[in-house]
């Protein structure tokens, strides 16, 4: 187990490297209230399977403001709470919510088949899409955003529990990472920042 300080140092180093690498992206600066990710992380990119059992990639969501969230359906408490809160956020956005998509990426792709995910995401919000795929493809996306998850056996019946990053990554309509929302942040700040991004209109 790495110490918190080592991990923070590694994160900072990555952030600095990211700033240098992504300096050329040139997304319009916006007065965000949440942690600004602009230029600090790579564009959205993945090849996964949607809850409608179709192969999808990040380019399928260009033109939409994307909220990326890692979770799993056998998580009875925190994941549904986050999804329920995002449903409230979507309701607060009103008609503008049609320009946004919640991508719920399963970090438990073995159990989370497209069919299981389909029932799950639709129980929360019509703007939510469940994504699953080969474990390697999910891991690639998790690593791309320096997120993390671990699997811990919980004993009985070969069941296991998954620890996972609780942050939500928000991307603009061009697939650029723009803000990071954590459970410690205010919900209205997320609504505010999403409105800024949705006001940006369709990409050219």
């Amino acid at each position, binding site marked *: 187990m790495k110490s918190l300080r080592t991990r923070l140092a590694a994160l900072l180093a990555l952030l600095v490297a990211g700033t240098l690498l992504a300096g050329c992206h040139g997304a319009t600066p916006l007065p965000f209230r949440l942690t600004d990710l602009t230029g600090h992380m790579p564009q959205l990119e993945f090849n996964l399977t949607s809850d409608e059992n179709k192969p999808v990639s990040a380019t399928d969501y260009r033109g939409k403001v994307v909220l990326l969230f890692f979770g799993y359906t056998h*998580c009875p*408490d925190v994941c*549904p709470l986050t999804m*329920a*809160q995002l449903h409230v956020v979507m309701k607060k956005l009103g008609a503008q919510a049609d320009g946004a998509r919640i991508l719920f990426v399963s970090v438990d792709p073995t159990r989370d088949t497209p069919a299981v995910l389909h029932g*799950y995401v639709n*129980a929360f919000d019509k703007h939510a899409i469940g994504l699953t795929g080969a474990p390697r493809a999910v891991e690639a996306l998790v690593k791309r955003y320096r997120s993390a998850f671990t699997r811990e056996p*919980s004993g009985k019946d070969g069941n296991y529990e998954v620890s*996972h990053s609780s942050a939500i990554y928000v991307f603009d309509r061009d697939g650029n990472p723009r803000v990071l929302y*954590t459970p410690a942040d205010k919900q209205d700040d997320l609504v505010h920042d999403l409105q800024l991004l949705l006001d940006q209109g369709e990409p050219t």
Partner: protein
Amino acid sequence: MKHARLFALLAGLSLAAGVHAAAADQVHASHAWIRVLPGTLPAGGYVTLENRGDQPVALTGARSTAYAEVMLHHSSTQGGMSRMAMVESLPIPAHGSVVLGPGGYHLMLMKPAAAVLPGNRVQMQLQFDDGSSLPVDFVARPANALGDEAPASAHSGH
């Protein structure tokens, strides 16, 4: 002789039991609800427990005929990571209360015997450390509910 000693012991025990009310008798439960997830996915059970007695008590778990397995859990977020841990016992101080609520303590309800649907009432036997149990009716709420109140879209019958 042996019998006399056993009798004295039993008498002593029942006397001791008479001094303090069973935990279940001094705990008042409210805001009991379940967040229902589709299919056979595990659900979260929530309740507020108020200890009206002069003695501390501890919740150790729950049982229900509606779910094959019920576990007392705690969710936490540390260093940006969410995790769940099993809880052996949750103390409720004398004249105090604890909240089992989303993102914190909860009952993890697994393997439903039959589909639990929003609006259903599910009885659970809350178990305490002294062996007593308290029957509580939990109301099943939709997946995207935020608390035990009926969602705005539902009927307003009162």
